[in-house]
C-alpha cells in the first residue's frame, strides 16, 4: 500500500527525517511510535503531501506522491488537533466535505451514531469541546470509506466510551481490508489494536515489524518496556 | 439666442418700433436725439434684386439719419466706411464677408446703429487690428443682435463714448493667440455698455484698456484662447452677472480701481497659468456674490490692496484664493469655501489681509454657545500648500495621510504658515447668497 524509499526531510538545519525506508502492506494495521520530535507527524504529513520531501520517493497504492492531489481521495486523515471554521455547524462541515469531494453515496456515517454526535450536528463548531471536535475529526476520517486511514493520536482526547468505540471501528474497518496507519503514545492501545509497529527515533526507523517480534528481540513482555529498551539501545 | 429673437421681433415691428425702442436701450441716445432732430427718415433698401445692390452704394446715397435695410444675401465689398449717422439693419441675417483680407465696417460717425447682420471673415493682420466692426472715435453707436464669425477682431471700440454692444454672438477662428483678435475690444472708451453677448474662440473674449465707466453685464465668454475677460487701466467699471467658462487663462483684471464685480461666474479655467480671476495691482474694488467653481486657482491676487471680497462662493477649485505677499489690506468676509483642494494658499509667512466670518467646509471646530460662529479660529492655509510652492512635484502626495498629519501639526503650532492668516470668526453654516 505504502512504499517509502530514501525519504529525507529537513526543516532548516534540523534533520527531521533521515533515509526513511518503509513498506506498509495492504490491509495491515500499523502503529508508528517514537518519542516527541522523532518525526512521526512529519512522516504522516509527507504521506499526505502536507510536507514537501527533500529527497526520496513515496508511493501510495502505486501512485507517486508529488503534488497531484487525486491520490488523497483514498485517504482518510484524522489530525491530532482538530480545528474548523468557527461559525460553521457540524452538519455544514460534513456537507462541505461531501460537496468538495463530490461524493454523496457509499458514505460511512456509522461513527456519528457510535460517538453520539447526532445531537451536536446543528451546533457551531466553536461551541464544541476539544473531545467533541476530535470525534468530528474521526467521523470525517471514516466518512468516505477510504482504502487508507491515517490517524494521528486518534483517542488522545476522547472519553473511555468513545475511545473504545472508535477503536472497535478501527479494528472493524481493518478487518474489512482497509489499511490503517496510526500514531499513539498509549502503548496499551497499540498492543490492543495493531500487529505491526514502526519505531522512529530522531528521524530514523529503528524497528519495523510485528509487535511480537519486537518483544521477543528485547526480551520484554510488555510493549512499553520493549520500546523503552529499544530507545536505550538506540541512544549512544 | 434670446438676443436674435429680440432682433427679429423688433424687425417685425418695423421702423416705428425701432425708433421707440432705441432710446430705451441707451438713455444717452435720447439725449443725442435732441442734437440731431429727426427729419424725414428715408429707408434705403439694399438687395441683390434691387436697384441698390451694395451696402457701400446705400451708404453713399444715404444722408444723415437714414436707415439702410439690407436684404438677405451675401455682400462682399471689402472695407465699408460709415461716415454719417445711419442705421444699418439686416433682414433675414444677410452676410457681410470681409474675404479674410479687410476690416469690414469702419464707423467714424456718431449715432450709427448696426443690427441683424452676419459679419464674417475680417482679415487677420499683424499690422492692423482689423475688425468686423470698428467704431473709431465715435459716440452713441449701437452694435446689436449681430453675428460675428471667423473675424480677426469682432467688435472694436477705439476712443468711443456712450456706445452699446449687446446681444451679439461672436465666434472667432480659435486657432492661435497670434492669429486671433479679441471678441469685444474697448480701447480708450468711456460710458460703454456691453451686455448679453456671447463670445467664444477669440483671443480674449472681452478686452478693455484705458476705459472708464464701462458696464459689462450678462455676457457669456467661453473657450477663448487667452482670457475670457481682460481689462487694464480701466477705472470705475462694473461687471455684473457675466459668465466666464473654460478660457485658456481665465479672467485677468489689472491696474484698475473702483471696480465692481458682482454675480459673475468664473468656471473651469484649468491650467498652470489659468485663473478664475487674476487680480493684479487692483485697488479699492469690490468683488461680491460671484461664483468661482472648478478653477485651478479661484482668485489669484498679486499686489492688490483695499479690495473687498465678500459673499462669493469658491467651490471645487484647486486653490480657492492664492494671495501673494504683495497683496495687502484686503478683506475677505462672508464667502463660502466648498470642496476646494486648498482653501487659501500664499507664498509668504506674513499677511496683512483680513479673513473674517467666512464659511469653510474644511472647518472642524465647534460652536458651544450656538451663535453660529465657530469657537476655534480656522487657519485656511495648509502647510502642504506652502510645500507645493517650493516643491511642486510633491503635489502627488495630496490627500495622503502623512500630509494630513503634517498639516494637523502645523495647524496646532504654525511655523511656516502665516500666523495672522486666520479666520477668528468662522461660520458654522453656509452663507446664503442671493
Amino acid at each position: 500500500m505504502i512504499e517509502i524509499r530514501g525519504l529525507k526531510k529537513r526543516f532548516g538545519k534540523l534533520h527531521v527525517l533521515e533515509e526513511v525506508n518503509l513498506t506498509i502492506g495492504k490491509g495491515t494495521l500499523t502503529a508508528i511510535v517514537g518519542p516527541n520530535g522523532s518525526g512521526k507527524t512529519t512522516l504522516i504529513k509527507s504521506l499526505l503531501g502536507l510536507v514537501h520531501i527533500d529527497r526520496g520517493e513515496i508511493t501510495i497504492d502505486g501512485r507517486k506522491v508529488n503534488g497531484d492531489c487525486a491520490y488523497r481521495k483514498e485517504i482518510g486523515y484524522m489530525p491530532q488537533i482538530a480545528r474548523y471554521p468557527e461559525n460553521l455547524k457540524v452538519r455544514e462541515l460534513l456537507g462541505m466535505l461531501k460537496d468538495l469531494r463530490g461524493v454523496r453515496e457509499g458514505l460511512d456515517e456509522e461513527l456519528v451514531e457510535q460517538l453520539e454526535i447526532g445531537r451536536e450536528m446543528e451546533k457551531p463548531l466553536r461551541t464544541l469541546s476539544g473531545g467533541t471536535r476530535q470525534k468530528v475529526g474521526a467521523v470525517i476520517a471514516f466518512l468516505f470509506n477510504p482504502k487508507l486511514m491515517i490517524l494521528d493520536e486518534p483517542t488522545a482526547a476522547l472519553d473511555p466510551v468513545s475511545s473504545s468505540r472508535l477503536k472497535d471501528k478501527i479494528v472493524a474497518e481493518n478487518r474489512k481490508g482497509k489499511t490503517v496507519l496510526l500514531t499513539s503514545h498509549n502503548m496499551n492501545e497499540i498492543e490492543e489494536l495493531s500487529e505491526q509497529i514502526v519505531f522512529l527515533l530522531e528521524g530514523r526507523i529503528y524497528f519495523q515489524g510485528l509487535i511480537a517480534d519486537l518483544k521477543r528481540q528485547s526480551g520484554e513482555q510488555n510493549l512499553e518496556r520493549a520500546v523503552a529498551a529499544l530507545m536505550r539501545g538506540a541512544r549512544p | 439666442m434670446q438676443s436674435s429673437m429680440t432682433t427679429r421681433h423688433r424687425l417685425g415691428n418695423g421702423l416705428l418700433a425701432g425708433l421707440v425702442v432705441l432710446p430705451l436701450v441707451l438713455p444717452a441716445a435720447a439725449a443725442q436725439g435732441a442734437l440731431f432732430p429727426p427729419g424725414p427718415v428715408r429707408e434705403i433698401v439694399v438687395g441683390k434684386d434691387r436697384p441698390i445692390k451694395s451696402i457701400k452704394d446705400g451708404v453713399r446715397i444715404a444722408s444723415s439719419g437714414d436707415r439702410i435695410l439690407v436684404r438677405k444675401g451675401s455682400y462682399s465689398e471689402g472695407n465699408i466706411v460709415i461716415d454719417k449717422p445711419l442705421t444699418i439693419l439686416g433682414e433675414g441675417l444677410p452676410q457681410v464677408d470681409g474675404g479674410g483680407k479687410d476690416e469690414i465696417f469702419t464707423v467714424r460717425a456718431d449715432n450709427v446703429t448696426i443690427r441683424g447682420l452676419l459679419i464674417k471673415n475680417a482679415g487677420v493682420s499683424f499690422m492692423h487690428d482689423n475688425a468686423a466692426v470698428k467704431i473709431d472715435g465715435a459716440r452713441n453707436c449701437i452694435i446689436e443682435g449681430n453675428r460675428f464669425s471667423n473675424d480677426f477682431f469682432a467688435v472694436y471700440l477705439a476712443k468711443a463714448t456712450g456706445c452699446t454692444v449687446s446681444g451679439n454672438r461672436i465666434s472667432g477662428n480659435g486657432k492661435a493667440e497670434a492669429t486671433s483678435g479679441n471678441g469685444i475690444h474697448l480701447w480708450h472708451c468711456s460710458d460703454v455698455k456691453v451686455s448679453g453677448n456671447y463670445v467664444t474662440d477669440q483671443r480674449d473674449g472681452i478686452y478693455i484698456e484705458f476705459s472708464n465707466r464701462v458696464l459689462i453685464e450678462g455676457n457669456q465668454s467661453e473657450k477663448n484662447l487667452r482670457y475670457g475677460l481682460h481689462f487694464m487701466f480701466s477705472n470705475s467699471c462694473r461687471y455684473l452677472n457675466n459668465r466666464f467658462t473654460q478660457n485658456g487663462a481665465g479672467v485677468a483684471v489689472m491696474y484698475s480701481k473702483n471696480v465692481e464685480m458682482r454675480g459673475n461666474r468664473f468656471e473651469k479655467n484649468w491650467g498652470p497659468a489659468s485663473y478664475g480671476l487674476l487680480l493684479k495691482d487692483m485697488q479699492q474694488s469690490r468683488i461680491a456674490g460671484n461664483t468661482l467653481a472648478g478653477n485651478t486657482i479661484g482668485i489669484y491676487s498679486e499686489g492688490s490692496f483695499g479690495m473687498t471680497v465678500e459673499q462669493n462662493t469658491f467651490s471645487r477649485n484647486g486653490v480657492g484664493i492664492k494671495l501673494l505677499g504683495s497683496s495687502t489690506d484686503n478683506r475677505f468676509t462672508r464667502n463660502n469655501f466648498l470642496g476646494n483642494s486648498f482653501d487659501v494658499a500664499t507664498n509668504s509667512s506674513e499677511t496683512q489681509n483680513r479673513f473674517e466670518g467666512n464659511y469653510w467646509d474644511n472647518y472642524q471646530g465647534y460652536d458651544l454657545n450656538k451663535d453660529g460662529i465657530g469657537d476655534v479660529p480656522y487657519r485656511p492655509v495648509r502647510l502642504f500648500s506652502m510645500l507645493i510652492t517650493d516643491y511642486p512635484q510633491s503635489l502627488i502626495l495630496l490627500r495622503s495621510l502623512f500630509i494630513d498629519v503634517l498639516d494637523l501639526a502645523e495647524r496646532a503650532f504654525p511655523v511656516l504658515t502665516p500666523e495672522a492668516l486666520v479666520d477668528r470668526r468662522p461660520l458654522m453654516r453656509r452663507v446664503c447668497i442671493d
Partner: protein
Amino acid sequence: MRETLKLGRYQLRDLMRSKWLFAYSGFFFLVTFALFRFVGDGSKVAVSLMNLVLFIIPLVSTMLGTTYYYGSREFVELMLAQPIKRGSLFAGLCLGVSIPLVLSFLAGVGGAFLFCGSEVAQDLPAFLTLLVVGAVLTFIFVALAFLVAVTNKDKARGLGISLLFWLVFSVIYDGLVLLAVVCFADYPLEMPLLILSILNPIDLARVLILLKFDVSALMGYTGAVFQQFFGSSWGIAIALTSLVGWSVLTFILGRSCFARKDF
C-alpha cells in the same frame, strides 16, 4: 475553480455569522449616514469617506486576513488532506475572507446610500469610485495578509509584520516620498514619483481619488508627465490597471508560497 468557489462559499457562510463583520458593516453604515446628515454636501461626504476607506480598509483587511489565516491553520491541514489542489484552497481562503469583507463594506456604505439617494445620485461617479476602490483594496490587503501569514509561522510575528506593512503603505511610505522630493528637488522627479505611487496600493487608490476630486489643483502643475497623466484618461486607466495588477500579483505570490509551504 469549482473547488475554490465551493470552499469560498462555506467560508463565506462561516464568516458571515461572525459579529465582527456586522460591526464592520455597521461602522461604515453609521459613518456614511452621519456624514450625509452632518456634512450634507455629496462631494464632501465622498471625500471624507475616501479618506476613511484608505485608512480603515487596509488596516482591517490585513488584521483580519492575518488572524483568520492563523486561526484556520488546522482547518487548512484538514483540507489539504482532502483531494483538493493547494491553489484552489488558497484562492478559496482568500476569497472566503475578502468577499465577506467587501460585502459588509458595500452593505454598510450602500445601506446608507439608500437613505441619502439624492445626494449620491449627484456625485454618482465619485461614489462608485469609492466602492470600487474599497473593494479592490480589500482584496489586495487580504492577499497581502495571507502572504505574510503563510511565510511566517509565528502568529505574533506575522501580525506584527502585517501591521508594519500597513503602517508603511499608509503613512511611512509617503513620508519617504516627500523626503525624496525635498532631497532631489532639482532633478526631474515626475516619472520616478509616478512609479513610486504605483508601487504602493494605497497611493494608487489615492491617486484615483485625486483624479476624481482634485483635477483643478492637479492642472496647476506645469510638468508634462503629470499633465499627461492627470489630464487624460490615461491616468485613470493606468491607476486602475495597476491596482488590479497589485491584487493579482500579491495573490499569485501568496499562492506560490502557500504551494511550497510545509504544514
